[in-house]
Structure formats: C-alpha cells, structure tokens
C-alpha cells in the first residue's frame, strides 16, 4: 500500500520553516534521529496474507475487533488493519495465545447459535445480536485486568486478550504492523510527528513563563 508517512511529512514541514532556525539548529541531531525512526516505521508494511489465521477465523476476528472499535465517521479496527496485526501477534509476541483464540472463537460461535437459533457463526449475527453475545461471553469470564502492565495480559481470558490485541493493533506505533495509515491516532487526536515544539496544548499556549508566587498568592 502506497502511503505518505505523515511523520516524515511533518518533519519536512518543520525543516521548511514552520519552526525557527535557532530551534532547528538546537534540535537537529535529535530530529535527524527521529526522522530515521519515522522512515523505519513507514517501511513496516502490513503482511499480504494471513500467516496464522484461517480465512474463517479472520472473518470472526474482524467482526469482534469491529465490535470493540467500530467504524463510524472515523476509522475503526477494520480500517486500521487490526486483523492483520492480530495474525502477526499470534505468530510473534502472542504465539502462546493461539489456544485462547481457538477456544474463544469456538465458544463465541456456539453461544451465538444458542442465543440466536439458526446463527452458526458470530459474524453472521446482526450488530445488536453480536453485542449481546460478546457481553455474555465477557460476563462468563472472571478475570479483568485494567493495569498498565501489559505483561499481566499473559494470563488473560479471550475477551480481555482480544480487546488488548485490538487496541494494540489500533493504537500502537505502525512500526509494529498495526494502526494502518495512523487510523487509530486520527481517532484519538495524536499527531504522528516524531518531534514537537511548544506550545503543546490549549492551556500552555499563553503561559507567560515561570514566575515566583506573588505576595498576593502567598497570602491566600
């Protein structure tokens, strides 16, 4: 897929005069290094074909990840290529989770059929039905971790695991093979540039510089 890497583009814009010459001089070695990393990220192409998932499994995983991060006026898991990220994850850092996925998908298809007779696969259910099935699956599992440590995901159950992998494929740096065209970062508002200069946000843009507390403030 041919894409212009926005990080690279922003970097070039900076050089073109968006930032002051003095700032560029001071930051140059760092910006150069950042640009090299941006280039590496842009070269990380998504895989052409699934390596671990069967086409059937891929369809179910795309349905579940689209339930977790749906597509609306902004991109969702589908546009970010989350299913490709998960395929790669199951070959690399999450290879041990393959049985969790296999059992989880089987459970989900079975529950879809039990809850909505005639439905044989989760992906064949309507969006409303899918929500009900996935909610029931989540409720049937006990372990929820909301910690910051991703290492703790090692023992997660299927709904927690696929939620983590969907978020990772949606929001991690594209260098890892997900977040295609920075789809996830568009949603959360993260500028893909690799270097920034102040002001950063709304509340620091009119900051006058640090001053010691005034006598008036002190008296309060």
């Amino acid at each position: 897929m041919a894409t212009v890497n926005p990080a690279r583009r922003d970097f070039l814009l900076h050089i073109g005069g968006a930032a002051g010459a003095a700032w560029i001089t001071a930051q140059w070695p760092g910006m150069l290094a950042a640009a090299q990393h941006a280039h590496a990220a842009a070269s990380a192409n998504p895989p052409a074909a699934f390596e671990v998932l069967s086409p059937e499994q891929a369809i179910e995983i795309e349905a579940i990840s689209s339930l977790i991060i749906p597509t609306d006026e902004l991109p969702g898991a589908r546009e970010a290529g989350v299913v490709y990220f998960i395929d790669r994850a199951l070959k690399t850092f999450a290879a041990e989770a393959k049985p969790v996925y296999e059992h989880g998908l089987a459970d989900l298809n079975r529950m879809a059929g039990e809850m909505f007779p005639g439905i044989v696969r989760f992906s064949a259910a309507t969006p409303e039905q899918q929500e009900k099935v996935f909610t029931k699956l989540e409720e049937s599992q006990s372990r929820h971790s909301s910690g910051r440590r991703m290492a703790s995901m090692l023992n997660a159950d299927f709904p927690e695991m696929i939620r983590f992998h969907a978020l990772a494929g949606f929001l991690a740096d594209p260098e890892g093979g997900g977040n295609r065209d920075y789809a996830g970062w568009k949603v959360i508002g993260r500028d893909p540039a690799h270097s920034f200069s102040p002001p950063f946000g709304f509340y620091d843009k009119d900051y006058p510089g640090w001053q010691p507390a005034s006598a008036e403030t002190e008296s309060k």
Partner: protein
Amino acid sequence: MTQAKVTYQPSDEVDFVIIGSGAAGGVLAKELSTNGFRVVVLEQGPYLTEADFTHDEIEIFTKHRLTNDPKRQPTTFRQTEQEKAVQQPSLLYGRCVGGSSVHFTANFWRFHEIDFIERSKVGEIPGTGFADWPITYADLEPYYTKVEWEVGVSGLAGASPFDPPRSKPYPMPPLPVKSSGVLFERAARKLGYHPFPAPMAILSQPRAGRSACVNCGFCLGFGCEVGAKSSSLASVIRMAERTGRCEIRPNCYVHRIETGKNGRATGAVYFDAQRNAHLQKAKAVIVCANGAETPRLLLLSASNAFPNGLANSSGLVGKYLMPNTGAIAYGVFDEPLNDYKGYAVSRIFHDFYELDAKKLGFYGGGGLDARFDLTPVGFAMSALPPGTPRWGKEFKKALQQNFTRTMEIFCHATSLPVATNSFSLDPDVKDAWGLPALRMTFKDHPNDLKMVSWMADRAMEILDAAGAKTKWHPPITEQRFAVHLLGTCRMGNDAKSSVINPDHRTHDVPNLFLCDGSSLVTSGRGQPTMTIEALAYRAADRITALAKRGEIAGQANHAT
C-alpha cells in the same frame, strides 16, 4: 580524546569488576576508570543504543526489550512469611546497558536534609527498622551537584522554598512547560502551595555532544532515540569507555561472587550469551545490580565460610524493602492539553515533603507532580473514567474525547522499612538458567497506606481547583509489585544492623562493595535515582581513596 575500546580476558585480574551498568554502575565505571583503574562492567542485558530504540509500545512492553523478562526470570510473591509464595511478576527493572535509567521517567529530585535524619526527629515507629543514615545531606550535596552537571539535569534553582541548600545552579534551564503543568501550577497556587518547574534528567539544551529533548512523547518505558534522556547509557557509560580502561561487557549474567580462603572476593562468575560460565577475576567487586538482584546475588553466593549468603552476618541482606508508595489521580478537561507531546512531568510541589505526623496521625510525606506518561495503548487500557464501557461506540468516543484532554497527578511518597518486607530466594521456582528465582515478601505498613490516601485526596482537590470536568483516582490498594527497589542492603555504622558501611564496603568482606538502591536507609519520597547516582559518585571517591592508600589489595600500583 577517544581511545580505542579496551577488552579484558576473564583471567586478567582487573582492579574492579562492577556488576550492573545502571544508575550506580555507570557512574562508578566512569569515575573509577577516569581515576586510572582497570574496570570490567558485567551487564546481564544487551548493549542497545539509540538506533535500537523504538516507539512501538507492543515491542517494548510485551517483549520486555529493556526490562527483566518474567518468563525467563520468574518471580514469586507473598504478603507474609507464613504464606507460600505464588509465581507472578512482582518487580520491574532495566535489563540492558544503562539499566533502569534507560526507560525511567527521569524525575530527578534530590533528597532533602530530613531524609537522612528523620528517625532522630520523628522517633521510633513500632514494627519498623526506621533509622538515620550514617551520612547527611551535606555529605552528599557536592555529589548531587556533580550528577546535575555531568549526567545532565534541567531545572531551576531556588524555585521551591522547600529545596535543600545547593552549591551550584542547574546546568540547564527547565524543559518547556506542558498544559498539565500550567493547570497544576495555577490550581496549586490557588490552594496556597508552591509549585515549581520539575528537575528532570533530560537535556533542555544540547550538551556534551547530545541532542536536546525533541518532545517526541515516548519517554517513560522507552529508550530515548535522540540521547536527550540522561541515562547512564547516554552519559557516563560512554565517558567510561572513552577512558580506554573500562570494558562494558553485555549479556553476562552474574550468578556468583567467588571468595578465596582468606574470605576476600576474587571475582564474579557469570554465564555468557551461550551459557558458558566464566570467572572474571578482580581485586575488588562492586555490586550495582539493583535492590532485588544485589541481595539475590549475595544470597546465591553462600559458601561454607558464608553459609547465610555473602556479607550477610547481620541477616539483613534482602530485608527492609521499600518500594515507595504512590497514587495517581486523573483529570479530564474541556480543551486539548495534548500532553502526549513531550516528556512526562513539567511541574511538581514539595509542600507535603515533611508532614506533621502528630497532627495527621501518620508519619511520612511526599511530592506531587503533574504528568502524562501514558502511551496510546496504555491509555486505552487504563486511563478512561470509571464506568466507561470497555468496547463499542461509547468506548471509542471516550478515547476520542479524552486522550488529548487527560492529565495525571502522581503522588510519590515514603515507605517505612519493615524487616519482613524482603527479597529472598524462592525455594522451588527456578529461572531459565536453573537458579533460584527472586521471592518478594511485602505488605505495606498501614501508616504508608494512610499517608498516600491522604495525598490522593489532596491531588483530587487540585484537579478540582484546576477545573477538571471529570476526576477520579483508582482505589489505594496494597502493593504487590515493586519498581523502586530500595533498602535491601542498607548502609550503617554498626555491622549488626546494616550490610555496608558509609564507604559502601560490606562489613564482612573487605574488597566487596555494594552501591545501588539497596544502599538506602530510608526511602526518600520517591524518585530515588538522583540519590543513587549521588551515592555512586561519593562511593567512587571513597573507594578510590581506599585503593590509593593500599587498603584494597594493592590497587595503588595501578592507579595513575
């Protein structure tokens, strides 16, 4: 002038073998090699450089690229000595050249005068080994200054009325303020506190051939791609190598300190990357392996002469673990802060550094900082307001609304030294090399939990005064995971109640020194790295003086 990198043979008896290349090991390597000694640093992790670092949080966090790997290095946990420990990840430390200073937040407060003399001032606290340090703030002050100028710290001297005295200003101005810092500063002032620009071990200006911070936003947890974060890797390790007398040897897992018939250390035994064992001979051994691995190594080095572990006549090796106490409060604001840009912390205050124990009913104190240290995935996993759906349209909308509008206030606080809180060898679980795993035994002193709850309440008041439209803090719970690994081979004058003396020399083995978080007698208020580095600079001076006086086995011959 840059010299060719030196390499030694394990059979070469070098002056010092240093185990660990992190905050303390890096400083000691630089100082001792600069002072003319031949030094080998054995680092269990790989030698990564700026070109190896990445913003890919999945790569970093799930593959443990920079830190200990709970699969190959399992750990166990229990709350009390009566329980059987269960296998679970219980600690985190840097496992690469530069150690934890590669991935840390880079908050760089000095300890204050009170931290060293607090036992005398506060009195005994039941159930603890609360003690004064054998050294004072004044002893360390020159070395704090040395860290700031040599390793590289940005900050503003005199900006906090609670700051301890200093002999020199910071070498660089503070980093640019973030929106979280402005909101925090205004709100804290409104409430009568004294916020100031956070001292950070990150370059605000180019210095010593290193780039200034480019505000990429991938800081906590990541290696700095531009060398602006003042890790040991970016600073002292390279200075050590430039002396031509120091070899940094990565992928070397030290599992035993060998001792001779005279009870002196003869070197360090390690597995190389191919798991072949070698003995690196040395006239003296300095262990800087962190507050978990240092005591573990001493315990693994038990022998007939030292049946309870090396340098453990006091029985205190591994005890008095103090991980610091902490709490986080989150606030969401109307307008974008874009706090994902830049380093983590731009404003802090120390008004609570020394709380009135009599008035509040608990000992302790700490500091509060305004920060955003979350990666995009980390944010989605852990930082949405309670009650937000875990998936679906509303979940996505919350991500969209909150990522740029959220900030955190982090409360950093004291931990009391309790003897039963410890690292020891697990009797059953082994690591991938067949060595006993680390077992952590830990239960917070009730005082510490009271104090940090009180601080979390103050953080909520600040978010309120700042105008947060939503604010919350996760419940304060007992800790089962440690990142600050402090106090486990404490310093003292009495061989019965401490492991090392004020020169960092073990009381039991005259040519064995320990310097890292394990040396601390009290926990400070969080942010231990600055003090660990200052201790390392001071230790290097003390050890150099001993060696030059011929008090460590004839090293005077080699000093130039």
